[in-house]
């Protein structure tokens, strides 16, 4: 199941972020983010009860992702509708879909930056046709022209 879930994670991440799988893989963050979402390794700050609840929530989320992908294989607009209706509401799976989008775009999970690479690889900087402040510097004078 674990491998399968990791594949599902990449699949759904692409649909949620609007970046394709190759772009997401190019960040080098897929495995880290999958583990973040699945809470691996387990965060010692949670009680056993919280961990179990989270584990269940993540499990249901991936089952739902699995069915959404299967049911709407052929119809792109239905697929979009299903994601909008069944994953995107904050009430669905504790807002996990929105958290995944935030994770990819900003590198943050909850109130924390996952790690330095997560900050640097935040998709919002690509989206802005810029680069993360303090990293991937584009070189002297580059800012005086429109981005390539």
């Amino acid at each position, binding site marked *: 199941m674990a491998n399968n879930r990791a594949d599902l994670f990449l699949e759904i991440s692409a649909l949620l972020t*609007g970046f394709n799988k190759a772009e997401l893989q190019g960040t080098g963050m897929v495995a880290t983010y999958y583990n973040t979402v699945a809470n691996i390794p387990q965060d010692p700050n949670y009680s056993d009860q919280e961990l179990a609840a989270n584990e269940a929530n993540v499990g249901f989320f991936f089952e739902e992702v699995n069915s959404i992908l299967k049911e709407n294989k052929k119809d792109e607009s239905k697929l979009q509708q299903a994601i909008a209706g069944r994953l*995107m509401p904050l009430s669905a799976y504790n807002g996990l*879909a929105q958290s995944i989008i935030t994770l990819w775009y900003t590198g943050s999970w909850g109130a924390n930056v996952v790690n330095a690479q997560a900050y640097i690889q935040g998709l919002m900087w690509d*989206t802005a*046709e810029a680069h993360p402040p303090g990293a991937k510097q*584009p070189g*002297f004078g580059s*800012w005086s022209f429109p981005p390539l």
Partner: protein
Amino acid sequence: MKTDHYDVVIAGSGIAGSLIAKTLTRAGKKVLLLEAGLQAGVALDSDGAYNNYMSYLDRFYNAAAKVPNSPYPILKDAPTSNVLDVVKLTPGGPPPPGYLVQMGPLPFASDAVRGPGGTMLHWLGTTLRMLPNDFKMKTVYNQAVDWPITADDLRPYYEMAELEIGVSGEVSEQTYPDTPAPKAYFGKDYVFPMHKIPQSYLDTEIAKGVQNMTVKLNKRQYKINCISTPQGRNSTPNAKYPYRDVIWNKAEKKLKLTGLLGEKYDYNPVPSIWDAYTGQRCEGNASCVPICPVQAKYNPLKTLKRSNFDHLTIITQAVASTINIDEKTKEVTGIVYKRYNNPDSPEYTTGVAAGKIYVLAANAIENAKILLASGAANSSDQVGRNLMDHMVMLTWGLTKEKIYPYRGPGSTTNIATFRDGPFRSEHAAWISPFDNWGWSWPVFSPGSDVSDGLAMGLFGKQLRDYLNERLTRQFLLHFECEQSPDPDNRVTIDHQYLDPLGNYKPIIHYYATDYMLKSMEAAKTVSDQIFAANGIEDHTVYNPVTDAGYVTYKGQGYTYRGAGHIVGTHRMGFNKHDSVVNHEQRTWDHPNLFLAGCGNMPTLGTSNPSLTMTALTFKAAEAILKQLEK
């Protein structure tokens, strides 16, 4: 424990302290530098400097809120102000937590770094000179006070400061209101060490519509003048730049700029402190505040590194607390400091640093605090008073065409039009930098735009497109209003408020006079005209509930933010009744005590203060050398 006897003892290794240490040790004087921050931060060898600086960078990457202080260690024993502690004050309520004890009614909104190198580790790097009328506000506009020196007096020291910091800019483009043309104001052949940092694409696009447009203010018309901003970050050397060094001329008893006589000389940009090949050019990291990863931006460790270490002793983790004074001669006999081993533990040992001359260079608020704690230098009752900052009002909007912010140094162009003019008898002047970093300052973009998109139910390609359209059009304009000196805006101390080492925490009383509020009203009308004429959709919101610096004037709300320009707390003046120091930065009350830093500035002008303060610090270094060689 008493130290050896030094020629000069300095507290603080920001630009003020480091510059004096460098200038004096190179003139052969024996100097002791006390620094409150960690030992690791003062490493100037290649490995030590690199490893420590990379730990700052890593702390920045991992910080949830990337505020100016985010890269630098937080020290319980040498605490500092932090913009995260700036919150809305409740009238009559207890001061909120934080190092500054904010008594209000408004919060003082600027921070400082306590660590080797000081606050310029996270300065932006703007290095404008003050304008001639800034030095004579009383005479010309019947406001504030005059300086005891003029722009002309300061000119040679400005040139030294521009060499020390390594300024990039184009003198010919520095056209200011009510100021002689650049050739006259800067000198016929003067150029900055390096050519200007290229202005951003955003600057060019915005200037197309804004340059020379007419705006109305108080029934007068003004033509907007957008110019390139001189800055302390490395660019292409200017082959015409003649100077190489500042040295003490024993015979003439003066500091002098020197060139290499008869030799062809190219200015060498000062690289990072860890190797000669990093930081020779600004690489566009767009993170100058809070940290330049390659040190293309000037920081005071570059100055400290050029000291003569045969004559320099540095004691770190040493927090200057008070100064000892001989009651008869009024001479200072020592600086008492508390030295901690572990910054999280309240244990310390006490030392007394002894020398012939003493310099407090611990930042405007700290200097005032140390003087107040010692009952020193205060016969004028001006110590701690006249605390000033630029009150920064921001306006922001979306442009029609994409302007591609989030790239390049924080600001490369400014509107100079309102830096001076007759309106100064009615309200404060301001400078308006264009901001290259989108709406990150007021609303924490781009993270907040992601949240906004999600709140609209967007995901996938729609979200990506929404963010692209939005993030590439964000324009932010500053109005940095010159706060005028007010004796009630001040730093005080009280036994109730102490830090873990038992040193005083600064108590701050702060408010905005009508002179300031009126300038925000005026600035907003200018902003409205600029936005309207250029089709910029205004998204500015001043929130009465959440904005710490929310103020109202004539029924209208405005929000100010801190500029980081902490100024005025031990001002220079004409005599011992109106000021704390004289024009040489020597205290009137104690013949061997000098103060260095922005606290000495009687008024602020519309320029960021550090270049002017550095010029004044060269003046102080010269006066100290003169006094030592008497």
